């Protein structure tokens, strides 16, 4: 029984791995005692073609219903603890560079003072009256006459006509400029030249 199993196993090994032509003469003779060359070739063809057939099934991809969970998305993604700590340290470092600690202290002092003066109660209101005494303005006018001023500097200025007061002198025009008193129109020889005069 074991001999038969061993023989079957040996033939199967040969069929899986070698063409009939590739067998040694000794192997060929031994195989031919149990199986024909045609059967050997057909069985080998069956195995080789089966492998090719089975490979076609590998073209199919399984549905990704579990892979979706595997990725998890950004919000459900987990990161190691050391990465989280590094991120926090980096944030503090950035804050330190942008807002140095000194400025932070100053702001704290200011806020402390503000807290001390919490509420102011104004109890009395004083109204102060301020009296302002205004002195009356004194206007001093100094009249300087031209003649005097001119005398002071040594120049004698001629009196101007408009500075002479008006006189009551009235010349007699009839006596001086017009010796004849004239004549009437009817005596005038030239009246004929006037229209509508008779």
């Amino acid at each position, binding site marked *: 029984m074991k001999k038969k*199993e061993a023989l*079957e*196993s040996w*033939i*199967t090994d040969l*069929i899986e791995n070698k*063409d009939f032509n590739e067998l040694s003469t000794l192997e060929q003779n031994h195989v031919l005692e149990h199986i024909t*060359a*045609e*059967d050997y*070739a*057909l*069985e*080998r*063809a*069956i*195995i*080789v*073609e*089966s*492998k*090719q*057939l*089975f*490979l076609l*099934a*590998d073209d*199919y*991809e*399984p*549905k990704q*219903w*579990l*892979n979706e*969970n*595997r990725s*998890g998305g950004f919000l459900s993604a*987990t*990161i*190691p*603890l*050391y990465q989280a700590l590094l991120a926090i340290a980096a944030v503090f470092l950035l804050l330190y560079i942008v807002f140095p600690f000194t400025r932070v202290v100053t702001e704290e002092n200011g806020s402390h003072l503000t807290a001390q003066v919490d509420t102011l109660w104004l109890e009395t209101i004083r109204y102060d009256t301020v009296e302002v005494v205004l002195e009356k303005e004194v206007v001093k006018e100094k009249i300087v006459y031209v003649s005097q001023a001119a005398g002071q500097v040594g120049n004698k200025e001629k009196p101007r006509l408009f500075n002479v007061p008006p006189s009551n002198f009235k010349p007699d025009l009839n006596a001086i400029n017009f010796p004849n008193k004239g004549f009437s129109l009817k005596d005038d020889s030239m009246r004929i030249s006037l229209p509508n005069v008779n």
Partner: protein
Amino acid sequence: MKLFKTDITKLSDEALMSRLIKSNDSIALAELYQRYGKKLLGYFINMFKGDVALAEDFLQDLFVKLMDKKHLFDTEKKFYTWVFTIASNMCKTHFTKMKLHYGEEEIIEGSKAFNECATNLHNEFDKQVFRLLLKEKIAGLNYEHKVVFVLRYHQTFSLKEIATITETNIGTVKSRLFYATKQMAAELKEFDPKLESKLFKIN
């Protein structure tokens, strides 16, 4: 709280299962799904004759089961053999139900139709037809032979690992592999083996 976050992608499968058992860590479950989702989907597709929708349902059910039965996992053992054991048992249950509901003859009816088709196309068959027929033959294998065949030639598990997954011994695995191949070869006998060199150029 841990000081340094653990890189989940560097943890072993068994360590992830430990986290899952201890704290219901959904991230660990997601990582396991990431690692094994595709392999298990391919396994189910191959076990269910290329039915992708059914395979996806089974994959989802498998991870629900994994959450429910996580306490049964022995962290000293390999996770992938454990998860494939669950997957294989799910397939076994499915095939048993199918047999009860429809009977074995109806399940392999499609294979008969393909045999007729192959006979008609005997003179013009090509690699494509052979693959279609082979697919049907694999689907027509009984559960014990099919699970071993798929685990071996798709998932490339070792014989020992397959024995663990199927809860049998290595001898049984070898024997099932041998007879699964032999059975399919017998059903595909109508193909001219002389064409092997041209059509099935084996690396």
